[in-house]
């Protein structure tokens, strides 16, 4: 009898712990707090890397200048350092110009400039973290843009950082429209630099190389932001809907500054 009691207690504890774990996993608040757990240390590590990069580039320049003529040494060092500074400024200027161009294009929208500080630790998820959160006015569902193209949507918002689901992720789903013909479709991520238009009826006018862009139908978000270019249209035998493949502009290896378009 005692054994049965013990087993029942163990079974009870097991079920209670499973319920507690599920409550943990499916509570939105904890999710938002956990974003800050990654965001804050990542921001710190990022700034250290940035500083180290600056120091290492300084020493590299110094080393190469020692090999030069002694008379030109000082002058060269200053020039090279200045040159590098100009190069850095030029790059930053170019990035900021793109941001400004986007800002002018979409004057009515509230725009927040953010920096990418980390990527998803899980290889099966295509997401990244940015250094702005609810304190800066970021909301769940805001679009994230880089170089003028849509690259993701804010999914979880912490106090100082947020998590963005990229357009390539299989769980990224929005309503889009084609720029030339204005056909409304359903977009879903597919993998590396790829997306797909789902449920495209045969009578819909979908053209090769047409741009797919956001539409106002999608929960009153900003319309006209390009998502990708149509790269392949095919029809499978026996299937009603067309198969439309879209090439996206999300490239995780060169992400630095992004724009959050707030609703």
């Amino acid at each position, binding site marked *: 009898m005692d054994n049965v009691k013990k087993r029942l207690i163990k079974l009870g504890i097991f079920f209670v712990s499973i319920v507690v*774990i*599920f409550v*943990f*996993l*499916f509570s939105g608040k*904890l*999710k938002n707090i*956990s*974003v800050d*757990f*990654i965001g804050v*240390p*990542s921001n710190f*590590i*990022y700034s250290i*890397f940035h500083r180290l990069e600056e120091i290492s580039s300084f020493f590299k320049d110094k080393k190469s200048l020692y090999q030069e003529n002694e008379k030109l040494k000082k002058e060269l060092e200053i020039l090279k350092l200045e040159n590098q500074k100009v190069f850095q400024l030029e790059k930053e200027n170019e990035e900021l110009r793109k941001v400004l161009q986007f800002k002018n294009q979409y004057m009515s929208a509230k725009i927040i400039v953010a920096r*990418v*500080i*980390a*990527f*998803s*630790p*899980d*290889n*099966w*998820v295509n*997401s990244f*973290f940015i250094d702005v959160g609810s304190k800066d006015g970021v909301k769940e569902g805001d679009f994230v843009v880089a170089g003028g193209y849509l690259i993701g949507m804010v*999914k*979880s918002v912490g106090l100082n950082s947020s*998590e963005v*689901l990229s357009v390539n*992720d*299989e*769980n990224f789903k929005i309503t889009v429209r084609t720029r030339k013909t204005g056909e409304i479709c359903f977009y*879903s991520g*597919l*993998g*590396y630099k790829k997306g797909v238009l789902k449920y495209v009826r045969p009578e819909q006018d979908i053209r090769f190389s047409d741009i797919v862009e956001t539409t106002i139908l999608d929960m009153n978000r900003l319309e006209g932001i390009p998502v990708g270019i149509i790269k392949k249209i095919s029809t499978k035998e026996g299937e009603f809907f067309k198969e439309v493949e879209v090439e996206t502009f999300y490239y*995780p*290896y*060169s*992400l630095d500054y992004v724009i959050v378009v707030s609703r």
Partner: protein
Amino acid sequence: MIFYLKYFVIAYLLVVIQSNVFFKGVLKLFIVPDFVLVYIFWLTMENKENIAKYVGLFTGIFLDLLNPEKTFINTFSYFFSTLYIINIKNKFIGLNFTLKLLAIVLFSLIVSIPKTVYSFFLSNVSLNQSLSLIGFYVLYNAVIIYFIYYFTVFVLKRDEI
């Protein structure tokens, strides 16, 4: 309490390192090595099975919380595979290098296959690209275990059984 806390802090730091921009921004890696998985495996091999179980559970919950979607798959796969690897370990008196490699391959497969199948059921995306992801993921973990083995045997001069 503080003694046990350090294992969780290490697991947390490994997740932070895993998500760092260094891997994608500087090294341009498509797949990030799973340090946490190797850490849990190492804990099991160092006869810290109980801690490995709790670290596996903690990491799974943390990774699920960091997932943009509400999911339970990491908690399930990490905890289940930790239990499985402890079971395998108990079947042998000691694991040599080859067995260790086989064990980490199995461990990685047990973690990655449920995740792939789960994402397939969620999104119906073809499994072709996932296969290469699983392959390289397993390879990465095996390489890290090789380095740990090399480090303990040749650098720290610790003998294996």
